[in-house]
């Protein structure tokens, strides 16, 4: 198993170049509904470099999936629309692309792995057909080359006797095997960016670890960028280089994975860490996400925040302030603003942050 240090050197090598692989800046994605506009993603800025894994964490409904779907415009439009912001993949603006250009990006440059492997394979076709479909959509290979590549892909994702299994139907595979097939399909055209939207949620824990190892290995072999969407902080610790914590359509905190776990700055991140089994409160974070149709003034987390002060409920969501002296670590909390005392938050109690060490064989 390759180590993360390899990845990090890759990151340095690439990020010294001009443009990031994926650059979201101030991305908004809204949905028009009969009862008002749902602001699912409301100003997200994020970059992913080649060879790097960025995890987006947050509770259900915080806009993680919509963010990931917006990147290749996978959502249904209407009702979804992007009122503001830009999405750049290898420097190309996605929001201005034609359908044909988008089809080239989808699968070719950016590929998704979905949460539910049971549903993402079409039951009426053999998995061989489906892998070959993905290859053929983006390349002009001969039949033999396509088949060879399909077998190679299946072997790479760890499916034994790949050539004979090409002719099997999805229902003849177990859940973990289906997820491996989906990964093979996602990698069929060697995308630069892999978006994994809770790829292990539907799998049991042992399979989950295998899939994460597989993704880690494939990523470092191919030097892909990976955007990993999850609500599971344990998974984040195993796979991510950087973490973005999302809440109610906004990023609350961003930083390298170690920093986030060792010195969580935003009260929301601290509350999330507190919810991990074996530490802090069992009851979770009191309260609910704000209604995405009528968002509150000020910080969106203020209503559920134990450190909320007067300032939190006025104006807009606070800008991303730097935490201490780490330029990579930023958070959207008034306590980190000029003239405020970060100690109010940082010195309060939070559960042990030794999570980064229990990630298993391939963790840092």
């Amino acid at each position, binding site marked *: 198993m390759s180590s993360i240090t390899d990845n990090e050197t890759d990151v340095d090598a690439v990020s010294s170049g001009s443009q990031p692989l994926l650059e979201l800046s101030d991305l908004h994605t809204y949905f028009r509904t009969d009862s008002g506009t749902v602001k699912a993603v409301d100003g997200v800025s994020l970059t992913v470099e080649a060879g790097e894994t960025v995890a987006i964490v947050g509770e259900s409904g915080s806009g993680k999936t919509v963010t990931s779907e917006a990147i290749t415009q996978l959502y249904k439009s209407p009702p979804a629309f992007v009122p503001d912001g830009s999405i750049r993949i290898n420097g190309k603006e996605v929001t201005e692309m034609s359908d044909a250009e988008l*089809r080239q990006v989808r699968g070719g440059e950016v*590929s998704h792995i979905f949460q539910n492997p049971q549903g993402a394979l079409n039951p009426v076709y053999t998995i061989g057909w489906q892998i070959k*479909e993905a290859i053929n*959509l983006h390349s*002009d290979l001969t*039949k*033999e080359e396509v*088949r060879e590549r399909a077998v190679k892909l299946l072997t790479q994702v760890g499916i034994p006797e790949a050539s*004979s299994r090409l002719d099997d139907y999805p229902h003849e595979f177990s859940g973990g095997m289906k997820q491996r097939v989906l990964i093979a399909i996602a990698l069929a055209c060697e995308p630069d960016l892999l978006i994994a939207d809770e790829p292990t949620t539907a799998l049991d824990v042992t399979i989950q670890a295998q899939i994460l190892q597989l993704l880690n290995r494939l990523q470092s072999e191919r030097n892909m960028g990976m955007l990993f969407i999850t609500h599971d902080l344990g998974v984040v610790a195993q796979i991510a280089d950087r973490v973005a914590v999302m809440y109610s359509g906004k990023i609350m905190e961003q930083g390298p994975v170690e920093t986030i776990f060792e010195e969580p700055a935003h009260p929301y991140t601290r509350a999330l860490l507190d919810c991990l089994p074996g530490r802090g409160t069992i009851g979770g974070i009191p309260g609910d996400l704000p209604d995405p149709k009528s968002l509150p003034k000020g910080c969106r987390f203020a209503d559920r925040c134990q450190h909320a002060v007067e300032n939190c409920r006025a104006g807009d969501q606070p800008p991303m302030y730097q935490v201490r002296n780490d330029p990579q670590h930023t958070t959207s909390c008034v306590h980190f603003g000029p003239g405020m005392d970060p100690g109010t938050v940082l010195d309060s109690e939070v559960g042990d942050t030794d999570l980064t060490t229990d990630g298993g064989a391939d963790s840092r």
Partner: protein
Amino acid sequence: MGEKTDQPETDGGTPQEDPTFEQVDWASIDSGETPRRKKEYVWFGIVSAWLIGVVYDVYSQHIAGTGAAEFPVVGIISPVDWLWSITLLVFVYYGLVPLAENRRMTRYYWKEFRKNKAAVISGLFLTVIFAVGVIGSRVLPAPERTPGLENQPPVWGSVEDYVTGNDCPGGTTVVDGVTMCQGSWAHPLGTTSSGEDILRASIYGMEVSMQVGLIATLLSITLAAAVGLTAAYYGGLVDEVLMRYVDIQITFPTFFLFLLLAYTVGGSLFVLILIFGLFGWGSSARIMRAEALQRREEPYIQAAKNAGASSFWTVRRHLLPNISNSLITAASLTIPSIILAEAAIAFLGLGDLTVASWGRIISGGRDQLRTAWWIATIPGVFLFFTILAFNFLGDALRDALDPRHGGSGE
């Protein structure tokens, strides 16, 4: 779709060039899939030839004004025969050829289908009706009105002499002082009140019923699938426009549309088939749209989009196969209803009087049920069992062919 997007179907290649793969597995796959490209070219050629033929026929009839085009070997091809030939070709290309190529699925389908005995019998019955109708109506002479041979009884029966015409080829017997005319093998199922042979008329009627049922259903199901799937896939305004059109179309019964045309341009069999095929698909489109709306939300549709598939590709390759359940249900409802509608129109005497339809013969015998029961009964029995068989068959096909039911072929 261009050439490139057709490729996922094309698989295989020659196994000999690829010693690294297990020969056994690939041999079986390749045997089915290697000729695919060639097959597509052949199909393209056949359809082109058909189109050229139709265009030439239309040209010589309506533009050059030289009458129906004469083709070598087959001679004049009637409009209904044009449609009939393409229907059968489509049936072979999209039905029989894939079944012959994918033996494993065929075995599985057969295993599932065989469980339903009534359906197997129905299938056999319909095959016989189809074969006898298609071959018989080309080999046997057409039934003709024959003065003197009216109301002949079937071969096993006899009837009072005064009921029949002057001739009685089966001979007469005298029972209790009444002269009885005996049925004869010259007319095994008797004759109508105008002296037509009922067996031959029924055989000609078989082809008419099959033509009406299959051609109109193919037209209707194709349109319904196209409209239903497009509406469901795109949603929004497209859905609204298409489905409101369907609403309007459904309020105007095809039956009245046919009456309208029957009085204006004449109600030939061709017009009848077109009317039912082109305007009778509303409810089928609704059924298919309803299921497509569900399937559309399945993750594999999004996965196809994510892989870079075009909308047409997604609808054709991912949505359509997954609604085959509704498609077969819709087809198995459409076929019998169209056959019945044609029989009803012929019964009312509104159809083409030169066509040997079962409905017309039944209608001709309705006044003589007491004296010559066989005239209305025999085609009625054919009609009854044909409708019943199509219903049984549709039911079993839906169960056997549902791809989401499994299909492992073990």
